[in-house]
């Protein structure tokens, strides 16, 4: 295709050659030879190239012509200084790429709306209180987390309350109830798999405004205890496990050994009600088989057992505030007891539900903001680098600029030339930064901790981010390109032309100051970033290397749920006994034990403990164990005795307590034999401490709770099996699988993990921090070293004559090196002092909850970063200093 400007060019050619030909012909008619005729025609006509140029000057496409010229010239300049070009482009790419990926992470975790119609109408129904509503709730399952004003927020309600709230809210809002997801074993068409199941009521999909892609979602008739068992599957599950077969709807899926009719398949873009929602299957909540294993309460009938979560959709025209007031008044009528705590201040609370459940958001809000601040600093360092590089280049070109200006180049034209070059760099940097961003974002998603089976959505770079990235790089480049351009154009041409390379012109001297300031800033910012990196690295190290109270190597753990596959009563108890025996007999297995709650899995079971002797009550973690579990975990027995087989019965009243807890009873000796209630004082169960064991971490590495261990109730439907092996567990897992298969070939091992892997699951946040900050720190170090190197070597090149004179007059190499180093190190020292002061100040904003056993102001971290940066700066300054001293003074002097 022909562009209008190329067309113009050929037309101009044709037009002028026509004219020349006619003139030539005329001279030939007058009898002149062709050669002479052509010569005369040219003279009469004037230089065709100049004429063409004048024509181009008035053309509509002149700017394009100029731009092409500028670009060609810019590209040539870039090729002539490849180090500067690539250093600037890569600085920009790293700075902006890192920002883009942190932003896309924030968009994903903090800001993205649920993929449902009109998400802004959704509300999360919670309550808020000073503490757990004792007297109103006997037992509970759900999450409680700190909210504003020193209150806690809870998300669980009794079935009774849910029903009343749903009925009263009609017209103002549609409320639906749901529950936590639970791991289940499924089998379909002869293949078994593990899936996550979420119990929901028949309003759930109506609230979300989601319809089935195939089949249907739940209707009111499905959510009754009498209705046939049904299930709605996600598109993902349908694709991965049902072969995307539309005929699967109407067939039966076996879930925990009970057949469920598949009612429908959800649309592909529906990914659940939280980021990384693990739910694969949705079942009616009223058909749940869930019964409290702690208290034996039936949550379906007991109004004092709070266990259901709620989500709602406001009717158009109902404000959230109005709905909250209204639901609060209804909520108060559902209480069936009197609060024991007079300052309870229990009230309803509605939270914005557009972005789904907030657990991940709560955990990541502050860390992400800290990361954003750090990555912002990184961008500043990169920008300082670019400014420095462009400034030094502009100064190096002072002569060229002066020449152009004295030849009549306008100031505007000169600025345009410089800006075009900056834009060219920005384009290069922008493209590179997109590559950096797309490489790092996919890496970042893997660092986001969710529970390990959650499916994170693909985090592609969306076009808004790409546009923002490109806009940011152009902004940065133009900003930093404009100053040198403006400075260059302001320059007085004559001194620059007269001066040799050795002397310092006026412009050069003022650049030197600007460059110095930039380097000091860079070093100061780098101190901040590197101390953050060392701080979080030390934090992670501190967490992972502490004494956990148990042996963590060569331990394998997995869950198994025989009670959900038809085992019960004596058969279930017998199964557990033979499971332990079978495992112990497996080659490579040292010992095996069973636990009610999976260790190091966050969450856990919590009870209030009241000593019979009176005094304070304590919140303790509770786990139930088979007798061989304590030795298998490698937890030491300090006093008393372990559990024995005979303790393993539902009415058992013996308990082991941790050393920490024993201290609360007044020491190990006094704790032995002490008696206490677990649960509500009046209705709690009486236990006796028969032994004291070493304190050990139970739920995660950051917290070591007071622990009570009770004998495992053999009627428990699911347990965690913990196996200590003689060799690395991965090699023994197959024989362990085989051992379980011999007992029951249909029982899957759920989540088999080594203890190390299990621990790491809980440390994703710390790991993400340590990795990202480490990466930022290394980048900051590199960028500021490059900046310092650039400034010093530039200064050296400007002082070559001076150095030559000094050396000719007898200065030694050492004194020259010292001279140059002194400048660089003075800058670095100033930067380090400022940076340390900044780091001390900035750590006030690092939230305590990000750190473990470390104060935000960790002297060792700051010291380490200062030493690291000082060394880097020394090397960066030494290289040009060495080169200056190694030069032959006569060469330098002759250049003048």
């Amino acid at each position, binding site marked *: 295709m022909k562009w209008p400007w190329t067309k113009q060019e050929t*037309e*101009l050619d*044709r*037009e*002028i050659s*026509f*004219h020349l*030909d*006619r*003139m030539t*012909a005329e001279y030939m008619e007058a009898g002149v030879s062709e050669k002479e005729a052509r010569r005369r025609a040219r003279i*009469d*006509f*004037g*230089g*065709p190239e*100049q*004429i063409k140029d*004048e*024509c181009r*000057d*008035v*053309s*509509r496409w002149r700017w394009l012509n100029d731009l092409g010229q500028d670009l060609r010239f810019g590209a040539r300049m870039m090729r002539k200084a490849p180090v500067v070009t690539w250093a600037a482009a890569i600085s920009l790419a790293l700075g902006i790429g890192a920002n883009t990926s942190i932003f896309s992470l924030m968009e994903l975790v903090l800001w993205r709306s649920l993929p449902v119609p009109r998400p802004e109408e959704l509300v999360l129904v919670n309550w808020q209180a000073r503490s757990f509503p004792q007297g109103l709730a006997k037992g509970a399952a759900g999450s409680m987390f700190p909210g504003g004003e020193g209150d806690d927020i809870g998300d669980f309600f009794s079935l009774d309350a849910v029903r009343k709230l749903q009925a009263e809210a009609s017209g103002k809002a549609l409320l639906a109830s749901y529950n936590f997801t639970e791991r289940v074993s499924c089998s379909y068409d002869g293949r078994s798999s593990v899936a996550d199941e979420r119990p929901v009521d028949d309003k759930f999909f109506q609230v979300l405004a989601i319809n089935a892609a195939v089949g249907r979602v739940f209707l009111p008739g499905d959510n009754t205890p009498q209705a046939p068992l049904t299930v709605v599957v996600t598109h993902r599950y349908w694709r991965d496990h049902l072969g995307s077969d539309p005929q699967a709807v109407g067939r039966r899926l076996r879930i925990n050994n009970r057949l469920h009719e598949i009612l429908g398949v959800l649309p592909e873009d529906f990914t659940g009600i939280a980021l990384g929602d693990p739910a694969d299957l949705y079942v009616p909540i009223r058909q749940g088989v869930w019964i409290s294993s702690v208290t034996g309460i039936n949550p379906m009938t007991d109004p004092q057992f709070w266990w259901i979560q709620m989500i709602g959709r406001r009717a158009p025209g109902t404000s959230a505030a109005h709905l909250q007031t209204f639901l609060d008044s209804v909520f108060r009528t559902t209480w069936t007891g009197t609060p024991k705590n007079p300052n309870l201040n229990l009230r309803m609370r509605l939270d914005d539900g557009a972005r789904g459940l907030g657990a991940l958001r709560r955990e990541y809000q502050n860390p992400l903001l800290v990361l954003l601040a750090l990555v912002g600093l990184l961008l500043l360092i990169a920008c300082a680098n670019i400014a420095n590089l462009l400034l030094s280049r502009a100064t190096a070109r002072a002569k060229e600029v002066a020449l152009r200006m004295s030849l009549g180049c306008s100031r505007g034209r000169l600025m345009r030339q410089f800006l075009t070059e900056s834009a060219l760099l920005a384009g290069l940097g922008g493209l590179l930064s997109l590559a950096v961003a797309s490489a790092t974002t996919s890496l970042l998603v893997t660092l986001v901790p969710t529970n390990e089976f959650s499916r994170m959505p693909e985090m592609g770079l969306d076009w808004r981010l790409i546009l923002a990235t490109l806009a940011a790089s152009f902004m940065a480049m133009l900003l930093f390109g404009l100053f040198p351009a403006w400075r260059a154009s302001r320059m007085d041409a004559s001194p620059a032309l007269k001066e040799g390379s050795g002397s310092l012109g006026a412009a050069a001297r003022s650049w030197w100051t600007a460059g110095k300031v930039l380097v000091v800033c860079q070093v100061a910012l780098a101190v901040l970033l590197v101390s953050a990196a060392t701080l979080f690295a030390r934090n992670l190290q501190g967490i992972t290397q502490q004494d956990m109270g148990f042996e963590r190597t060569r331990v394998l753990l997995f869950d198994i749920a025989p009670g959900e596959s038809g085992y019960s009563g004596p058969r279930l108890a017998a199964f557990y006994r033979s499971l332990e025996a079978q495992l112990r007999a497996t080659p490579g297995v040292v010992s095996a034990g069973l636990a009610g709650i999976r260790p190091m899995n966050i969450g856990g079971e919590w009870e209030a403990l009241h000593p019979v002797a009176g005094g304070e009550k304590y919140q303790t973690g509770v786990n139930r164990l088979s007798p061989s579990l304590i030795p298998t975990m490698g937890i030491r027995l300090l006093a008393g005795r372990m559990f024995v087989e005979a303790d393993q019965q539902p009415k058992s009243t013996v308990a082991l307590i941790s050393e920490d807890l024993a201290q609360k009873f007044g020491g190990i000796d006094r704790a032995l034999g002490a008696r206490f209630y677990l649960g509500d004082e009046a209705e709690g169960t009486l236990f006796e401490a028969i032994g004291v064991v070493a304190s050990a971490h139970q739920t995660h590495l950051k917290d070591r709770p007071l622990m009570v261990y009770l004998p495992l109730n053999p009627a428990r439907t699911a347990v965690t099996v913990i196996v200590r092996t003689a060799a690395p567990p991965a090699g023994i897992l197959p024989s362990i699988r085989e051992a379980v298969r011999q007992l029951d070939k249909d029982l899957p091992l759920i989540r088999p993990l080594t203890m190390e892997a299990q621990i790491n699951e809980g440390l994703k946040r710390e790991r993400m921090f340590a990795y990202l900050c480490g990466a930022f720190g290394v980048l900051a170090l590199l960028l500021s070293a490059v900046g310092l190197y650039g400034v010093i070597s530039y200064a050296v090149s400007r002082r070559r004559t001076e150095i030559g004179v000094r050396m000719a007059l007898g200065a030694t190499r050492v004194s020259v090196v010292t001279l140059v180093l002194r400048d660089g190190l003075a800058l670095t020292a100033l930067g380090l002092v400022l940076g340390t002061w900044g780091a001390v100040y900035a750590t006030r904003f690092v939230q305590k909850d990000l750190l473990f056993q470390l104060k935000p102001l960790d002297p060792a971290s700051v010291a380490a970063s200062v030493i690291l940066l000082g060394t880097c700066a020394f090397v960066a300054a030494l290289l040009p200093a060495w080169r200056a001293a190694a030069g032959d003074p006569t060469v330098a002097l002759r250049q003048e």
Partner: protein
Amino acid sequence: MDLKRSDLLQGTLDLLILKTIEHRPLHGYAMAQRILETSREVLTVQQGSLYPALHRLERKGLITAEWREAESKRMAKFYSLTASGRTQLAEEMDQWQRYARAIQWVLQAPEVAS
């Protein structure tokens, strides 16, 4: 008397071009010939300098161009006046004539004894 190109008064080239193509479209060469002829060989425009002027006038929308077959069977670019070119021509001719008349008056003013 021979006027050199530099003697051509500033701005008069545009007027000459517009006038030359007032009645029929011409290409650049023919224009140069015609200016030479009608000025009785007094005004010799440096032929090349026509083209920047033509392009500038075209850009201003005073003239328009089209490719047509010339006498020599070759394609040439013919320029013709647009409506606004015609108005511009009338204005410039008027201005020029007033200017020329004023110069004339000055030159022919009778000697006044002081």
